[in-house]
């Protein structure tokens, strides 16, 4: 976690290279036991092999940071197993002495390395390591003996536990450092280490350490004892080794898991190496992945060093690779390597997107070892797991009661299955959970669990408290609403997907459609799958474990029936655990499939193999299609576009293959030849717009790196080139056709800048808007497209992996309803700047510039597809968002960007009675801008309930509102706007009456809703007052259509802020309850209702509308506030359109700016701030957001409630 670790990690990176060897070693483990130790033993290296592998190979690399990570993990593996094996001999040789020292000494020789690792950048020890590593290859550990040895070994760790723990502690810190480390900023997503990984990593590492040694001591005194006992047994042969072993244990712990220790000890360096590598792993993942990942994701090659680099993330690759490599030695392993690619099965169709995935590598080989490890594992785990298993019986009851205990059983899912499955199995699965939790101190766990037990019911009770809307007037919570927590066991809650990524309207899924209908709430998911993440575990493995029948990716919510089998949580099929999955690169233990990062994180990213490609990954390709007609020149956007692109040319996501092209159009189409070697860009004009052709095929889309000078030339001269243009027609359709032809061979992103209605050639449109109807309350026509030209073209584009983004900068009607289809169905984004003019409308210009900067530099995924899977019995009914639905659960996304979100509506087709959990998995397969195929998998797990009150308790009012908004948009296009508005009002009426008749048995008059939904009427009223859905207020058709597009694509948080802005009072903020982040204090003022009565003239109020902040200053506002925050002596001297907050040295100013920065923090697009004085005309823009007040054409909140009440009584 700590940043320092990160740096260290870098150094470790080099290790990752080493790791490859380790990886090789790892396989041996699996297979391993078979081969004779003795042979191995002689060379210290053999023992060391595992450890060595880690660091050794890399040594050279070590000097450089990077690769090592993978190796580390591997080493861990080896360590565990090997230790046993090696110990005997090695110990004799070197270990013994070292061992003794080891615990403390560790710190000394190796410890230095440890200690240093975190802080010290590169591991000094590398050279030493290298030597060791070489030895590793030998590791035919395979001999069964080794396994036993492991068991034995464990015990020793227990003894040493205290020391180990200390070590462990060190480790975690180290680990953490990497996580936070530098890697994150650069490639947050990519780098496993940095991102989620980092945190997780940190946790994992800690877990690892804890799990092996640390955990043992804490939780499982018993197990430890067992170990001890076991030791004796094993000791027979090994005892000498054992003695040594303890030290080794220490070492292992240090490494993360100690197993390596023996070897390490012997070679004190090794140990250090392993650490380095470890750290490196984390680091490398961060740093390496971004750039280096290259090497080897793919199956076989991976094994070798490249794998490690990638492996950094987890070392998995290495493992897999390793396994394969070792295979040769051990024999069994061989299979894995070959396995890499075959898709086993099924549908060829899937190839398209998710194809290959599972190779079930041959896992047969390792039978003997497996059992051994398994036994040991079970032994360790059982105690803990058992209790949970007991809970199982209670499940049924549990539903009714909120108790978590019941939930846990649920986890296992099929209660029935539990019963069936051998008891041992259950424990196993549970054990995994526990392990997961282990990383944390037991005490904390306990307290957390207790808190959960007692707290949850309270929460639910609170969520169910009947609220009479006509009486309670202060409904808003003091802080912005959070997503409700699903009523799951703490373990599951901990691993569940973040609500920002994946959210369900009902956090308790009703068991049947009938129950859902009774609740009168929509069931659906809101997804933001590609959002920028601070932490993300990236996994490189040549076997991506998936269910064989439904192709679900393995996730934290599957059930492990035993060591070798897991049960899919979506279709309940029982699958085999592939061999390489048995090795845990994080803990470096064999036989712990339930601790792999895939099973510990609900959001993971896999580096996909070639099975997931239909063609080689495409390069990043960007084509800019610019309107240069007279209208565009008048608006003056071209100069700002060129400036912005010029500035961000080097920040465009991509690699050395990145291609760019430009195309301009008015009534003709102009291409630009930017071929390297030309002295200046060459313009080619095609005036035949009825049959567009591409004048030159290879020189129009050019490599950005090679032609950068020409591109810059063009950007400099472009604004002047058309300044005299008098052409008023626009041939948008033909220009898009040309763009399609130009991009077809590669796919990529087309950015279209349009400033008027297209009037020429294919796709020409006529004005459909009648300005007199803008404020009509009767219904709005022409919300749908006028032609299918754009839709067809968009589908063609989608088929060729071309995404089209539209920037409309128009002051006149441009029929956005028709043109937007080009983006809607090709998964593009739409930006609209009404009345854009570079002089007359500086606010729009500023927004345009900020959006453009974000747009050009944000992450992008190419040729993407997303599949949404859900538990058997649930099915997707309707999709909302920009994409093309290619088959029942497959979304085709030519481009995917981090700012767009999706929604789906679900229906319950079969009763969910036979499972207590419902799971949803969204898998996004895409090509990164660096040309790597990646799969991002999110899994959400929710409880299934059979009581209406539970459904209401778990309702997520924000998600429900957003989903209803999407449904209303659909309705207004297919039917009519007034229908849609009625449907929204009816949603409130239905909810209130359903609640009244089914749940609340109070004979209260008035409007009673469950507390969880108390804000529902406010939100619906706010929706009805949005541009998209309002009537009676003059609204331009294009603005309305754009607002509808926003509803469909904005992520939930952003959308909710637009619909129902957050209002705070700033002039009397106190530090009470403030957040302390780093050195800054972020005050947390209370949320206020959006009503003018909450605003007073003697105050200053901040309204957060998502894209804009308004700071409203009252006439009688405290002069101190004006002086300290705005920098003006009094109210009168504030300029009318002030749009920034000066950086003053006063406390109040610092607090206000801290709050603004904090609010801004997680937003993709930079929000602007406007200071609004009470007397200016801008006041209206502020007060139009006061949705609870009456406006000229819409009712107030109170009137709305009365209307609802009337409807109910009908």
């Amino acid at each position, binding site marked *: 976690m700590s940043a320092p670790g990160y740096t260290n990690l870098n150094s470790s990176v080099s290790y990752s290279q080493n790791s490859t060897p380790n990886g090789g070693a790892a396989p041996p483990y699996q297979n391993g036991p078979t081969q004779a130790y003795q042979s191995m033993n002689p060379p210290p290296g053999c023992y060391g092999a595992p450890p060595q592998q880690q660091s050794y190979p890399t040594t050279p690399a070590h000097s450089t940071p990077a690769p090592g990570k993978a190796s580390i993990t591997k080493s861990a593996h080896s360590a565990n197993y090997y230790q046993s094996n090696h110990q005997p001999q090695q110990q004799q040789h070197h270990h013994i002495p070292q061992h003794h020292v080891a615990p403390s000494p560790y710190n000394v020789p190796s410890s230095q390395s440890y200690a240093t690792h975190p802080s010290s950048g590169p591991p000094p020890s590398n050279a030493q390591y290298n030597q060791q590593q070489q030895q590793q290859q030998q590791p035919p550990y395979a001999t069964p003996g080794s396994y036993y040895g492991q068991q034995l070994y464990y015990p020793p760790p227990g003894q040493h536990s205290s020391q180990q723990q200390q070590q462990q502690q060190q480790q975690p810190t180290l680990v953490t450092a990497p996580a936070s480390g530098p890697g994150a900023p650069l490639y947050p997503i990519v780098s496993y280490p940095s991102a989620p990984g980092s945190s997780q990593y940190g946790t994992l590492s800690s877990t690892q350490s804890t799990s092996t040694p640390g955990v043992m001591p804490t939780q499982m005194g018993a197990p430890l004892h067992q170990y001890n006992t076991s030791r004796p047994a094993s000791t027979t042969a090994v005892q000498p080794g054992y003695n040594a072993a303890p030290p080794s244990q220490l070492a292992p712990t240090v490494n993360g898991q100690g197993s390596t220790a023996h070897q390490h000890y012997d070679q004190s360096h090794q140990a250090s190496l392993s650490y380095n590598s470890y750290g490196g792993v984390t680091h490398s993942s961060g740093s390496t992945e971004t750039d280096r990942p290259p090497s080897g994701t793919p199956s076989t090659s991976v094994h070798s060093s490249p794998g490690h680099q990638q492996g950094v993330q987890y070392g998995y690759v290495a493992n897999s690779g390793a396994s394969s490599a070792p295979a040769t030695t051990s024999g069994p392993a061989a299979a894995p390597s070959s396995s890499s690619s075959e898709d086993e099965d099924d549908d060829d169709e899937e190839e398209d997107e998710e194809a290959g995935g599972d190779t079930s590598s041959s896992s047969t080989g390792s039978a003997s070892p497996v059992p051994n490890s398994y036994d040991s594992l079970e032994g360790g785990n059982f105690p803990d797991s058992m209790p949970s298993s007991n809970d199982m019986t209670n499940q049924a009851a549990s539903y009714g009661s909120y108790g978590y205990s019941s939930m846990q059983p649920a986890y296992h899912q099929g209660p029935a299955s539990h019963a069936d499955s051998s008891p041992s199995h259950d424990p196993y699965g549970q054990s995994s959970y526990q392990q997961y939790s282990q990383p944390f101190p037991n005490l904390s766990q306990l307290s957390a669990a207790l808190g959960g037990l007692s707290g949850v019911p309270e929460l639910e009770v609170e969520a169910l408290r009947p609220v009479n809307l006509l009486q309670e007037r202060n409904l808003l919570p003091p802080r912005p609403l959070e997503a409700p927590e699903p009523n799951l066991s703490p373990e599951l809650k901990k691993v569940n997907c973040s609500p920002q990524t994946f959210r369900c309207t009902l956090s308790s899924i009703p068991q049947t459609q009938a129950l859902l209908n009774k609740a009168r709430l929509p069931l659906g998911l809101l997804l933001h799958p590609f959002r920028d993440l601070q932490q993300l575990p990236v996994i490189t493995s040549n076997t991506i474990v998936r269910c064989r029948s439904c192709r679900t990716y393995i996730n934290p919510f599957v059930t492990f029936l035993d060591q070798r089998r897991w049960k899919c949580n979506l279709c309940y099929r029982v699958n085999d655990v592939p061999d390489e999955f048995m090795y845990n690169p994080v803990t470096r233990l064999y036989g712990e499939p339930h601790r792999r990062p895939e099973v510990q994180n609900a959001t993971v990213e896999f580096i996909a193999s070639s099975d997931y490609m239909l063609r080689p990954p495409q390069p990043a390709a960007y084509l800019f299609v610019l309107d240069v007609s007279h209208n565009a020149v008048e608006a003056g956007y071209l100069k700002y576009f060129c400036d912005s692109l010029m500035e961000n040319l080097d920040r465009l996501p991509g690699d050395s293959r990145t291609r760019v092209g430009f195309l301009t159009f008015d009534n003709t189409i102009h291409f630009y030849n930017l071929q390297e070697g030309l002295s200046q860009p060459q313009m080619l004009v095609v005036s035949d717009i009825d049959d567009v052709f591409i004048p030159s095929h290879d020189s129009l889309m050019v490599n950005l790196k090679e032609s950068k000078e020409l591109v810059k030339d063009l950007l400099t001269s472009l604004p002047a080139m058309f300044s005299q243009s008098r052409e008023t027609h626009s041939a948008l359709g033909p220009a898009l056709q040309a763009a399609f032809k130009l991009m077809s061979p590669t796919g990529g992103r087309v950015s279209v800048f349009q400033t008027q209605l297209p009037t020429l050639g294919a796709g020409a449109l006529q004005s459909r808007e009648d300005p007199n109807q803008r404020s009509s309350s009767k219904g709005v026509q022409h919300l749908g*497209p*006028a*032609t299918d030209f754009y839709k067809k073209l968009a589908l063609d584009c989608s088929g060729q992996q071309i995404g089209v983004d539209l920037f409309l900068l128009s002051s006149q009607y441009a029929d956005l309803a028709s043109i937007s289809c080009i983006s809607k*169905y090709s998964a593009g984004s739409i930006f609209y700047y009404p009345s854009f003019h570079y002089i007359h409308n500086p606010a729009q210009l500023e927004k345009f510039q900020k959006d453009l900067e974000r747009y050009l530099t944000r992450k992008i995924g190419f040729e993407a597809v997303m599949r949404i899977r859900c538990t058997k019995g649930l099915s997707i009914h309707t999709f909302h968002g920009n994409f093309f639905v290619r088959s*029942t659960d*497959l979304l085709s996304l030519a481009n995917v960007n981090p700012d767009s979100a999706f929604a789906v509506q679900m229906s319950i087709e079969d009763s969910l009675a036979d499972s207590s959990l419902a799971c949803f998995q969204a898998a996004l397969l895409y090509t990164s801008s660096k040309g790597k195929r990646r799969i991002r998998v999110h899994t959400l797990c929710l409880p299934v309930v059979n009581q209406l009150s539970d459904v209401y308790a778990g309702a997520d009012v924000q998600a429900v509102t957003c989903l209803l908004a999407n449904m209303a948009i*659909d309705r207004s296009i*297919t039917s009519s706007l007034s229908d849609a508005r009625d449907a929204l009002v009816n949603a409130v009426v239905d909810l209130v009456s359903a609640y009244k008749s089914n749940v609340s048995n109070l004979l209260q008059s008035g409007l009673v809703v469950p507390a969880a939904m108390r804000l529902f009427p406010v939100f619906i009223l706010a929706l009805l007052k949005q541009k998209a859905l309002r009537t009676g207020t003059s609204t331009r058709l294009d603005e309305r259509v754009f607002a509808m597009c926003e509803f469909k694509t904005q992520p939930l948080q952003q959308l909710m802020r637009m619909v129902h802005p957050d209002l705070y009072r700033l002039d009397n903020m106190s530090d009470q309850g403030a957040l302390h982040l780093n050195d800054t204090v972020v005050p947390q003022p209370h949320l206020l209702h959006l009503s003018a009565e909450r605003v007073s003239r003697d105050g200053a109020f901040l309204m957060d509308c998502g894209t804009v902040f308004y700071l409203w200053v009252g006439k009688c506002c405290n002069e101190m506030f004006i002086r300290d925050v705005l920098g003006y002596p009094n109210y009168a001297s504030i300029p009318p359109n002030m749009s920034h907050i000066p950086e003053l040295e006063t406390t109040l100013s610092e607090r206000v700016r801290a709050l603004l920065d904090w609010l801004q923090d997680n937003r993709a697009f930079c929000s602007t701030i406007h200071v609004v004085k009470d007397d200016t005309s801008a006041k209206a823009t502020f007060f139009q957001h006061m949705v609870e007040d009456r406006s000229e054409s819409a009712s107030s909140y109170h009137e709305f409630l009365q209307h609802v009440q009337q409807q109910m009584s009908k």
Partner: protein
Amino acid sequence: MEAAVFILSLVDCCALIFLSVYFIITLSDLECDYINARACCSKLNKWVIPEMVGQCLSTMLMLVSMHWFIFLLNLPVAAWDIYRYLKVPMGNMGVFDPTEIHNRGQLKSHMKEAMIKLGYHLLCFFIYLYSMILALIND
């Protein structure tokens, strides 16, 4: 003469039966993910007008030959076909629109419609067959 009318109707009805089966097969292919929405819809849209023409043809034949009962049996279906075709929004690519077919249960309703039509055409087939034989015997 009457026999000729029914023979023609019978042939027409056979064609419509085949068409219904084709619709069902294609839609279920889409349901099972064997073809993508775009291919499915472009296949089906091609046959929307022929289906409508075939249905109207048999309706007109019955009207002309003054078989009122069968005419009334045919009329609602013909009217539905025409209404469905005219109702398509301007921006859609036909009765079957690839961007919408997976939304709002459209796939299911199309499937249901094709099934009902298949049953209806089978019924008509036997009516025509019976009437044809009757007409031939009478001759």
